[in-house]
């Protein structure tokens, strides 16, 4: 992923962008934890709210794949379903970890 290009798109420099990515990883891990709790408690509303938070932040930084995945999870959670969330969560964690690379 070209952080320099994403930074340019946002009108900030690469160092600032990296700082934001670090913050994104921290907040997203916290949100993933909330999603996992939502799944354990069979609470799709909480899982959808945490997915919504990830979606917004990812979209703002230009992380389109994470944005799209979190958006699907939010929509499904709002519809009351937690089907395949274990797969979604694994995929999400993989994509977030890839940012550290």
């Amino acid at each position: 992923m070209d952080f320099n290009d994403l930074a340019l798109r946002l009108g900030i420099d690469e160092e600032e962008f990296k700082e934001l990515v670090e913050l994104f990883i921290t907040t997203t891990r916290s949100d993933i934890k909330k999603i996992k709790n939502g799944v354990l408690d069979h609470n799709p509303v909480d899982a959808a709210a945490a997915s919504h938070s990830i979606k917004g932040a990812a979209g703002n930084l230009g992380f389109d794949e994470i944005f799209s995945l979190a958006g699907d999870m939010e929509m499904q959670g709002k519809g009351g379903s937690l089907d395949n969330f274990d797969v979604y969560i694994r995929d999400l964690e993989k994509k977030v970890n890839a940012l550290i690379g």
Partner: protein
Amino acid sequence: MEQKQPYTVLVVDDNLLNLKLIEKALSKEGYRIFCADNGPDARAMAQREKPDLILLDIEMPGESGFDVIRKLKDGAETNAVPVLFLTGVSEVDSKLKGFDLGAVDYITKPFHPLEVLARVRIHLKLSIATNSLIAGQAAKLRQLTEAQVSMLPTPADNPGARFSVYYKALEEAGGDFYDILNISENIKGYFVADFSGHDIKTSYLTASVKALLAQNCTPVYSPMESMKMINDVLVEIMPSGKYLTACYMHINRTTRKLTIINAGHPPVVCLPVNGEPFLIKTEGDILGMFKDAHFGSQTLTVSPKDRFFIYSDGLVESAENKITWVNGADSLLPVYREIAGLPYEKAPEALIDRLFGKEGLPEDDIVILCVEV
């Protein structure tokens, strides 16, 4: 106009990344940023820091953006701050709800920092322009108030008229008006009026009424003739739907004859030098509405030191307590008795103190004229 620098923006979002991104983008451009990640903290910060603009996320756990704006708009210190919603929700209903609650605009998530910056700039410019307009209008209204007050005669300027007055306009353009007519050395006229509405048109009309009184309240005309002539002119010049209630009291201190002409106005209170206060009820049409108006009239023989109170309905009416002057005037008679021992110069102020207390605010404009024979 003094401008405070730098402009301050309160950003409210439960996602720390979003807060940081906006903070970076705006602070680079010279804005001072306050961040809150929940509704209660945001409201406390808005109260404390008085930001120039608020960016507010709608979907937050606990207090939502809708709850926050509702409370901000209820607060006297925060209700004028422009609020822009940050929303990931694309439904029209949600956006309309935000506008209904008082938001000035919304930014859809995901947002680009430069879009946020552009919208912040636009709405700050609008806010600056609106505030400047309001300040300009307030300055003009203050001039109008000064002009209105300068038209009201003072007891010091008219020592022979033996009157005192309390005058309070609730808004800059007051609806109450009074005038003293020096018809001759021993004949004086006292006029109190209440215009319908408190707007700018009303304040201009007071100048017309003052001129009409000066032209028509002369020894040549009886008090009734004076009022009828003034009415005929007002019917021609008053804007549609406008009128005034008025009371004109004419005292000849040589013959001790007092005449009251009433045009839909609350009754005059007479406080005789020896005796109980009573109302002089004279029914009549309002001024400036009907060409062939019929005004109430009553003539009394008076004694030296008898006092008369002419006042506007703000003294006796209360919309809050559903009191009209028809029943309100009667209930106040004992208060006039209480202030009978005071010099007439202090009577109107004492009446206000007793009715509203030192800090009570009347619901309407008030004028009280106390005249001693």
